[in-house]
Structures are given as structure tokens and as C-alpha cells.
């Protein structure tokens, strides 16, 4: 769907993007991750043709990115904004028409969405009369009303209450099912894990990690398990060449939980065979690093000096 090749964006005294290449598959939900100031917004603005890269190419659906693609992209900026004094309905019509819809078509689509989101009574209201959460809903509708093939959402859940987060999540998933490709830009990892198929991690204007979410997680597995058993008089301790215990939690009269890292060449079955004669096992779970952990690990490994926040 979107092929980004060797993008470089240089500002006077700061390189926002340094040779970044990304491939976004059609129909996927793609996570664009990175700390503040990493270059996410610069990249999104380039995809939206708000600014142009200094070098590098972008292909949209196999064609070189051009203004004719504007109507096929929907963009929800991180800094949300609407005309405060304009009526919601008029505003939606205006934004949809700017995306290339005819007035009639735009009216139908907007009515459809307003019904879906239970916003019918808002048509003649002004933005300033709506709550923050309601404004977010309006903005979301404005982003998707022209049925874009590619939807770019910059920090989509910030500012939503939990109920609306779920509504928006549902809508995003249903848009995705009906064929839309989504790009999420965020520094909040929880939402990514739930929704994204693939991710790319950008830090200090460089791509440092990308791939399918499951592949990345596999690559970061450390062969660590959490084993829970009923309290027993005989304590379990690390066994050289088999496993090491990194943490123990003891709830008297109830359970003991061990965090164990299995030694190279051994697997969980070997550990269980050792443990079963000794204790009464109650539970077992592999500890897979969350995207958050991977993110933090990658970013801190890179951070030789503190991140400088820039808005350029």
C-alpha cells in the first residue's frame, strides 16, 4: 500500500528523518512508534504531502505519491482542531468537499456516520458547544468520512474517555475489515499490541526496528517463565545448567511464584521434569516482553544523552 524508500528530511540544524524506509502492507494495521521528537510527525506530514522530503521516494499503491492521492488518505493529526464557531454539519461538509467529495455525496456519508456514532443532533451545534470527547468524535468522523484507503491516526486515543476509546477501536477494526489500511502513530504501547500487525520503531530520526509484531516479539523472547506452586517445606533453588531463579514471590498458606530463566539448550519440559517430583505445580506462563519493554529497551540502549524535544 505504502512504500517509503530512503526518506531524508533535513531542517537547518536538525535532521528529522535519516534514511528511513518503511513498507506498509495493504489491509494491515501498522504501528509507527517512537518517543516524542523521534520524527514520527515529520514522516506523517511527508506522507500527507504537507511537506516534501529532501530525498527519497514514496509509492502509494504502486504509484509515485502525488496530489491525486490526497482524497484516498485520511489524516487525524495529533493536534486536533476544528473551526470553533462553525456548525458541525457545515464543517464536515467543508472538510469532506476539500477531500474531493461532491456536496451531495458528502451529505449522505456524513449523515450515515452521524447516525452510526449517535451524533445526529449535533448537526447545527458549534464545536465550542461540544465537550472535548465529542469534538474528538467529530474529528474522527472528519478523518474517515471520504472512505480513504489509507488512514493515518496520530495518537488516536489521547483525549478520549475509555467508553469512546472502545467505540473508536471498534470503528477502526471495522474499517480495517472493510479493506482500509491503517497507520498508527503513538508512543503508547498498550494500544499497539492490541491492534497492530506490524510496527516500525523510530528513534532520533532513524529506524531502529521493524517487522511483524509476532516476529519481533519472538525475537525478544528470553526463555523466561513464571511458575506457581503450592507452598512446600523444601525451598526450590537455582540449578546450574538448567535454570536460574530471578525472582520469588511468597504468599503464605497460598502459593509461591518463581520467575525462572531457562539455561541455554534446555526447555520448559526439562525444568518441569525437575520440579514435578519436588513441588505441586499450580500454574505456568511464559513471560513474553511487551512492546513497551522492547521499546524502552531499544530507546534507552540508544540514548547516550537525554532526548531533546524538538518540534521541527
Amino acid at each position, binding site marked *: 500500500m505504502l512504500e517509503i524508500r530512503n526518506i531524508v528530511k533535513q531542517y*537547518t540544524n536538525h535532521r528529522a528523518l535519516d534514511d528511513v524506509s518503511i513498507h506498509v502492507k495493504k489491509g494491515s494495521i501498522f504501528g509507527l512508534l517512537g518517543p516524542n521528537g523521534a520524527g514520527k510527525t515529520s514522516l506523517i506530514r511527508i506522507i500527507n504531502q504537507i511537506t516534501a522530503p529532501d530525498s527519497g521516494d514514496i509509492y502509494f499503491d504502486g504509484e509515485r505519491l502525488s*496530489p491525486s492521492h*490526497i482524497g484516498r488518505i485520511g489524516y487525524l493529526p495529533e*493536534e486536533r*482542531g476544528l*473551526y470553533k464557531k462553525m456548525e458541525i454539519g457545515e464543517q464536515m461538509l467543508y472538510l469532506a468537499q476539500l477531500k474531493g467529495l461532491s456536496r451531495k455525496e458528502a451529505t449522505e456519508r456524513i449523515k450515515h456516520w452521524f447516525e452510526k456514532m449517535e451524533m445526529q443532533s449535533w448537526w447545527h451545534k458549534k464545536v465550542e458547544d461540544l465537550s472535548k470527547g465529542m469534538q474528538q468524535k467529530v474529528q474522527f468522523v472528519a478523518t474517515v468520512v471520504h472512505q480513504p484507503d489509507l488512514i493515518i491516526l496520530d495518537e488516536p486515543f489521547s483525549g478520549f474517555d475509555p467508553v469512546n476509546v472502545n467505540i473508536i477501536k471498534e470503528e477502526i477494526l471495522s474499517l480495517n475489515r472493510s479493506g482500509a489500511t491503517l497507520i498508527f502513530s503513538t508512543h503508547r504501547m498498550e494500544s499497539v499490541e492490541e491492534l497492530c500487525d506490524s510496527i516500525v520503531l523510530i528513534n532520533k530520526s532513524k529506524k531502529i526496528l521493524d517487522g511483524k509484531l509476532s516476529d519481533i516479539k519472538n525475537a525478544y523472547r528470553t526463555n523466561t517463565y513464571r511458575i506457581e506452586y503450592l507452598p512446600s517445606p523444601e525451598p526450590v533453588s537455582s540449578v546450574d545448567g538448567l535454570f536460574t531463579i530471578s525472582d520469588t514471590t511468597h504468599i503464605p498458606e497460598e502459593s509461591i511464584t518463581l520467575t525462572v530463566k531457562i539455561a541455554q539448550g534446555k526447555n520448559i519440559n526439562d525444568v518441569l521434569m525437575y520440579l514435578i517430583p519436588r513441588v505441586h505445580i499450580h500454574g505456568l506462563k511464559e513471560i513474553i516482553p511487551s512492546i513497551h519493554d522492547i521499546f524502552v529497551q531499544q530507546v534507552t540502549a540508544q540514548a547516550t544523552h537525554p532526548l531533546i524535544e524538538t518540534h521541527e
Partner: protein
Amino acid sequence: MNKILLIIKREYLSRVKKRSFLLVTFLVPLVIIGIYALTIYLTARSFENNKATVHMIDQSGLFAGKIESTKNITFIPVTAAENTTEERNRMLEAEGKNFLLIIPSDMLTSSHAELISKETAGFTIQSDISRQLENVLRNIALADAGIDRNTVESIHPEVTLSAKEITAEGEKDSSAGAAMGIAMSLSIVVYICLFLYGSQVMRGIIEEKTSRIVEVIISSVKPFQLMMGKIIGIGLVGLTQFILWIVLSATLMGIASAGLVDGRDIRAQIEQQQALANGEVQPVIKPQMGMFGTVKQELDKVDFQLIIATFLLYFFGGYLLYSALFAAVGSAVDSDTETQQFMFPIMIPLLFTYILSFGVLINDPNGPLAFWLSMIPFTSPIAMLVRIPFGVPMWQIGLSLVLLIGGFIFTTWVAARIYRVGILMYGKKASYKELVKWFRYKG
């Protein structure tokens, strides 16, 4: 192109539909006409509602029987018996406006009388009384010199200057007075309106920037389209307002001047009556509407069609040129309060021309300074409009308009380069250095 039209439409309609627009458009001419009508009405009324009683103590004995009461002033001679302090006080305390006129015995030589009252006498009453006294004194002086009064009245030389210009078409009546008036009002209107509408552009852009909608919009249209759409949309609002004002004022002026003639008739009648009451043997009836007549005559010579056409052209051209600069300023700042440092340099050329227009330009509308100021795009919207009522060769208007269009294209180009960067810079204090940097950015 279609998108730019959408933007123009929104900018235009969202402003024209506002209640404040309708209010200003329809109220301003009404208020102006209203003030005009009220002034006339009050002036007319002040003539009627100014009755006074003047008790005359004539110690010189020269005026007995020679002063006559007018419509507003009743003269009552005070006899010697009545001339006591109590009587005087009683006269002054009586109902209505009461005056005590004391003419001393040496009136002929001193020419000084006293007017006593509880409250200060109004200007009309004072001048009415002194005129009557002067008349009597003059008659006495004339009689002493052996000159017949009627002879004096018949000699009444009046000189009027009729300024004529020599032009290619031959002699032409000049209209310097009216031209000056029109020139000054045009320079005021253009000066004010360029700032009024220019700062509307600026505020619109600041609003879009601070509400962050700008990012949504420029993901659909080019920044240049958004900027031009806004500038043109607001410019059309300005033109609409002007055209409505011109139409409304013309209509209302038509109605008002019909009423005005009546008012003037009343005044003329009053003057006539007073003249008669003053005992002038041959009341001189001046040609009615003397002053007004000359102004009207001069106004007839002014080419209003040319003035309105050039006014609209220069206003729009100047507006486009300046509003592009205002747009650049709006994109560079985060709030109204930060605009000051950038506004001043923009204002200087206009302010300069505006101030000059009252002195130099009006006195020498065809001099070299006036010529150059009306050619330079930054000053021509005011300078040329000031010159036009005095007559400007067509080639100069044409050249100046071409230069104005060139200037507008230039400022728009500069502004657009700053704008496209500025609107995405949140929370950054812009300096001139910064603006130059933005201007140089690629893409």
C-alpha cells in the same frame, strides 16, 4: 482550482452571514445619514425655540423706536420710572429667557453696551442684538456723513473666482475644493479599510493555526491555496460591503436631500423675516443655498464613475498586496499580541502616504513626489486615489495598476513561502531571522 473556490466560498459566506456584518453594513450609512439629518433638524429647531425678552434701558436715547422685535426676540423699552433695582430684578426673574440690555449714554463713541441675564446669552441672541444696534449706529453715521442709505445698499460688489484648467480639450472648470474633500475622504477610507480587512486575514490565519485545524486542511489542499482562498474570500467581503455602502448611501442621500431642501427653506424664510424685522429697507435676499450651490456645482464636475471604479480597483489591489503580508505575519505568530513587532514595518509606507496625502499630495497633486508615490505599489493605493479627483492621465493610472499587480504577485510569493512553514510552527517565537530561514526552505 475547485478547492480554492470552496475555501473562498467558506471564508466569504462565514463572514457575510454573520449578524455583525449585516449590522455594520446597514447601520453605518444609516448612522451617518442619521447624524446628518439630526444636525439639520436641531439647527432648524434652534431657530424656532429661542424666544427671549430683552428689556432695553436706553440711556443714550438714540435707539428709541428704532429697534424692532423679531420672531425670537421681543424688545421692551424700560422707562426711567421702571429703572429701579427691584424692577430690574423682577424683570430678570420673570418666566422665560429675560435679558437686560443697558445702552450707556456715550454709546455713539464707545460702541459698547451690556447685556445682563441670569444665564449666559446664546450666540444667536447676542449676534442678533448687536446686529440691530450696529445697524442703528451705522444709519446714524451715514446720516451724519450725508450719505443716503439706499445708495449704500445698492453698491454691493461681489467677486467670485472661477478657476479654470487648461487641458487638451480646452478650458475646463476646476473643482479643487470638492476634489480636495473627496481626496481626503478616500485616503482615510482606504487607509482604514486596508488595515481592517488585512487584519481580518491575519486573525483568520491565527485562528486556524491556534485551533490546529490548519493541519487537517493542508492535508487536503496546498498551503498556498488556503492562503489565497482566505485572502480573496475576505477581499470579496470588503468589496461587497463597499458596494452595499455606495448603493445604500446613494439611496439614502437621495431621500435625505429631499428633506434637506425643506429644512433649508425654513431657514431661508427665517433669515428673510429677520432681515425684514431688522428694518432693512431693501432686504437683500441672497441667492438661496449660496454655499451649498457652489459645492453642488463643483461636485457635478467631479467624475464619480471614474472615482468609484478606481477606488474599487485600488482598494482591491492594495488589499491583496497588504493582506499577503498580513497573512505572513499571521502564520508566524501564535496570538494577536505577538503581531506588534511585525505590524509596524508593514504600516510605515501606508502611514507615510496617509500623512503626506493631507499636505503635500493635495497641494501638489501632479508634482514629482505625488507621481512617484502613486507608482510605487506599496503607496499607490492611497496616493493615486488622492490624485484622481484632481485628474490623472490614463497612462499613469494604467502603469500604476500594472505595478500594483506586480507588487501583489511579489508580496504573495514572499508571503506564501513564509506561510507554508509558519503555520506548522507551534509555540515558537518567530524572529526576522527565523522568517528569512523559513523563506529559504525548500519544497
